[in-house]
């Protein structure tokens, strides 16, 4: 107990999470009198999951896209498609951000790469300043539920390690995320239209000429989502193969066809992206050890028994789950939250009759809000830094967006069919 408390304090003070998780695993194994060389076996299991190949490859592809002019072209294209609508620009921004985040993982890259383009454009189109700040900050984590986002993949990987009575596949998660993701996009778009109903003018008249130009500019990037999503959803290739195709394709297009990234910049981009991969995989590695210990020691069952005494209905459990995840989401980034919480939460939630795929979607939807929940959501600080505004102003600016997405999260949580109908369940 004392050890657990000490570890929690160290974690809150800012100790790297991999060390905290490793320490708790080692403590557990020592208590159970298991030789600690088992750590080697556990961490080495990272090399035994073929799907993990997707993580370095998608991350690299995402970093490449972020460094190229792809964000700019993406905005141009969505502008040509949607810019004629009153309030179209806000919808352009939301769509472009969701799309970009799905491909790059929500690590704040969206705010930095796309926010810089969209924020001044929104201002010019006549939207109020706070609305623009809020929109750009919120959009930084929009798209988490769309394939091929890394958090979805990671949730699937962890769930597959747990020997659940019902095995879930990553493809199922990709399909389940579509409707809830669209719901969020839809609600935010409706709000933007309402805010811009008087002030915002259409940024451009619809012109076939502009659309043709935008299409021509993105001719090489445009097929990518179709190849990846079509390939995965259509069952032509596995997630890791899709990642390999994406990485290679993006590399060829951005470096050799558009020539926006010079060969000599590549090592730096590779290195930067692999730092993120390393930070995720080391946590995953040590948490494989702690998870195994937790399951051996039957901890999820004990947690379930304890909660069951106080919480009898599935509904109450879901309410508590939402609150719990929102709080977690403000403190932990989505990757560490997934590896730490999922192994404990999933068996408990399944005991309450919650579908594991649905739980994954609930989890990520909550985490998405956590990114910009005051006072400590990470994207608030990234936006404050990027747009040089006081954090207090960003808090106020994101508040309406927070409540809208909270409503979306509640709908997603209490209406499982939204996530599961496309799966035919």
């Amino acid at each position: 107990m004392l050890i657990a408390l000490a570890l929690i304090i160290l974690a809150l003070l800012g100790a790297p999470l991999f060390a905290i998780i490793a320490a708790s695993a080692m403590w557990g194994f020592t208590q159970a009198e298991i030789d600690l060389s088992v750590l080697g076996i556990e961490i080495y299991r990272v090399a035994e999951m073929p799907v993990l190949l997707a993580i370095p490859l998608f991350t690299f592809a995402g970093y490449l896209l972020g460094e190229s002019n792809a964000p700019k072209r993406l905005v141009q294209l969505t502008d040509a498609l949607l810019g004629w609508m009153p309030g179209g620009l806000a919808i352009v921004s939301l769509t472009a951000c969701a799309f970009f985040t799905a491909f790059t993982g929500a690590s704040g890259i969206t705010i930095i790469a796309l926010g810089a383009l969209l924020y001044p454009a929104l201002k010019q189109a006549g939207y109020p300043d706070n609305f623009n700040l809020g929109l750009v900050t919120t959009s930084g984590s929009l798209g988490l539920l769309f394939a091929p986002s890394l958090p979805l993949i990671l949730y699937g990987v962890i769930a597959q390690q747990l020997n659940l009575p019902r095995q879930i596949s990553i493809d199922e998660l990709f399909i389940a995320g579509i409707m809830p993701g669209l719901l969020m996009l839809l609600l935010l778009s409706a709000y933007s239209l309402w805010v811009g109903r008087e002030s915002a003018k259409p940024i451009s008249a619809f012109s076939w000429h502009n659309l043709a130009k935008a299409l021509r500019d993105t001719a090489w990037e445009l097929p990518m989502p179709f190849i990846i999503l079509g390939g995965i959803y259509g069952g032509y290739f596995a997630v890791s193969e899709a990642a390999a195709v994406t990485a290679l394709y993006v590399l060829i297009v951005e470096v050799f066809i558009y020539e926006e990234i010079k060969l000599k910049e590549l090592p730096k981009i590779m290195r930067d992206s692999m730092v993120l991969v390393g930070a995720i995989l080391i946590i995953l590695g040590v948490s494989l050890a702690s998870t195994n210990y937790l399951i051996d020691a039957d901890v999820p069952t004990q947690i379930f028994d304890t909660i069951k005494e106080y919480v009898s209905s599935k509904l109450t459990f879901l309410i508590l789950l939402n609150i719990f995840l929102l709080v977690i989401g403000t403190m932990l980034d989505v990757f560490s939250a997934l590896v730490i919480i999922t192994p404990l939460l999933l068996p408990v939630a399944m005991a309450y009759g919650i579908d594991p795929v649905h739980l994954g979607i609930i989890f990520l939807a909550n985490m998405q809000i956590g990114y910009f929940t005051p006072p400590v959501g990470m994207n608030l600080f990234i936006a404050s830094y990027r747009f040089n505004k006081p954090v207090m102003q960003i808090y106020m600016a994101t508040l309406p967006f927070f409540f809208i997405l909270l409503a979306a999260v509640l709908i997603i949580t209490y209406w499982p069919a939204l996530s599961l109908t496309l799966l035919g369940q």
Partner: protein
Amino acid sequence: MFMLAAMIVLAATQIILRNVFQSGMPELEPLLRILVLWIGMLGAVVAAREDRHISIDVFSRSLSPRNKCMVRVVLDLFVTLIAGLIAYHTARFVAFEYEAATMAFARVPSWMAQSILPFAFGVIALRYLHFTFCNIIALMNKGYDRKC
């Protein structure tokens, strides 16, 4: 070395591509999986060097530079200890595997593939030991703002 590994993966993806069209080599799949581990661990080493490991930075933000520095000494010592322990125990694991002489794939023995674990955790431990000393020196010189 690190970048090389990243490039090898990309080279390997090309071969995957070829696999899609023709039958491929069975050795490639385990090789790729082990490369993921190697890239991950080497990435973790670089993340340690740049002090970019994932952590909760909610409360450290509100500390004064001096207190932050003192907290860092404790945290860095803790990480040194834990990473050192992992390095030691994974090294024992690698030694067992060496004696057992199991094969990871083709003619590559498992212990070779696994040797990245003690290596990476060892380097991470040394890195945090360095941070520890660096922060102690900063405390003594009252130079809290200096980056270690």
